[in-house]
């Protein structure tokens, strides 16, 4: 596999958890959903459960007219109603001494992950990245099945009949978006933004991985002398010490087709 990041943005399916009888292990081994036949539907990733329901015309668009009034609020339906499975397949076959991490840049609020029958837990918190080393649980055939059971915030709260700022304020007990119980001109978000709400990716590396470099600069002599300071973490996933050549290069080319005038 090529070293680097690969986004898993296409081909996702979703289904309400209460309408799926298979377990996570079965979904990712013996009983994967074949197509977007009910209860499965095409999923929006990144996006919320509500985005998936809107895409599939299960509910009206909440931001047009009074569409939001036709969607049941999680405070009335219960959390199970907006607890959803997300499923996708990907092909990946590693070479010797390669490693792969499965990355979620944002899940609201917590999740269980199943890859080829193996379970991992993604702990709660909307604003944290999850990085899971899945090297040892990839399928040797290169065909991989991934299912993610996403749970809503722990305290979605209820919306009082009169509405109001922040609803019943329960959402503030969680580390999640707070406008979702309604705010100023914002109507309550019925699923409280539950979902895989940011990028999902695979990152393939050799034994040594670069993690979270930090760039900072210092300025002297009226900005004539400038120094770039760079710190990073290096993780060796291998069983033996790695002799590395680490290089930093700074170029002035503007990336891709982006130009500033």
């Amino acid at each position, binding site marked *: 596999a090529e070293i680097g990041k690969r986004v898993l943005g296409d081909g996702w399916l979703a289904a309400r958890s209460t309408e799926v009888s298979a377990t996570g292990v079965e979904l990712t081994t013996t009983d994967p959903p074949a197509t977007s036949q009910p209860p499965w539907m095409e999923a929006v990733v990144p996006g*919320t459960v509500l985005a998936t329901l*809107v895409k599939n015309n299960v509910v009206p668009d909440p931001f047009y007219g009074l569409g939001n009034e036709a969607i049941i609020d999680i405070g009335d339906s219960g959390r199970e109603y907006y607890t959803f499975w997300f499923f996708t397949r990907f092909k990946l076959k590693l070479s010797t001494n390669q490693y792969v991490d499965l990355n979620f840049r944002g899940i609201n609020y917590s999740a269980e992950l199943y890859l080829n029958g193996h379970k991992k837990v993604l702990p709660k918190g909307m604003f*944290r990245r999850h990085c899971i080393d899945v090297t040892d649980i990839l399928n040797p055939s290169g065909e991989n099945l991934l299912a993610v059971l996403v749970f809503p915030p722990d305290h979605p709260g209820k919306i009082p009949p009169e509405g109001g700022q922040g609803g019943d304020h329960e959402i*503030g007990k969680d580390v999640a978006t707070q406008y979702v119980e309604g705010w100023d001109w914002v109507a309550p978000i019925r699923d409280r933004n539950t979902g895989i709400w940011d990028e999902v990716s695979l990152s393939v590396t050799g034994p040594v991985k670069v993690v979270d470099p930090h760039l900072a600069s210092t300025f002297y002599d009226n*900005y004539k002398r400038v120094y770039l300071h760079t710190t990073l973490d290096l*993780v060796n996933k291998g069983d033996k010490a790695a002799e590395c050549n*680490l*290089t930093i*290069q700074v*170029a002035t080319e503007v990336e891709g087709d982006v130009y500033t005038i």
Partner: protein
Amino acid sequence: EHLYSQILQVPARSLVQYTFPELFFYKPNLWWPNGMGNQSLYDVEINVTVQDHGESDKWSQPYGFRKIENKIDAATGGRLFKVNGERVFIRGGNWILSDGLLRFSKKRYKADIKFHADMNFNMIRIWAGGIAERPDFYHYCDIYGLLVWQEFWITGDVDGRGDPISNPDGPLDHDLFLLCARDTVKMLRNHPSLALWVGGNEQVPPPDINLALEQFLQLHPHYLSSNYS
């Protein structure tokens, strides 16, 4: 002089932190907010190769050289900003998020942020009741010169106010809040558009959270020295 390589050994099954010797630049093109100059960006690339294996990992990010300072003005109570030593008259817009269904796309971020720049704005304040914006959002703020005022997820009306009074001590799990805050800072800290972190919306977070955030975000003493050579 803008290229540096280092041979080093990383022990098996371990994490090491490494700091490169600083790279020197003479009169680099500086990054400026919208309306004050160009948004000059340099491509920073980091590669690691491993003996008997070859390329092991690579990382890159556009980076802008800029110095942002701010302080509360004693006379007016307002916050004053300087970028690269020049005072900036802030013209800003409030931001919750791009889409209430969180269907974020680069195309939409680009359009939204360019629109702010076209309106002659130079700052976007991301309200604490919304989200910590995503790297793609910051990327286009880097490109179009929008300074970003990013708040953490504490708001008066679900954390401490309301009738009955709500969660006066903030979220239940302070450690989780701080873990999320640390991770968010790590994700966004290299963007030149990132100008200011704020604890919450129109209020101060619970004391332990506030103190921890202040400690996370303190400048390293290295950057306060004026005698660096």
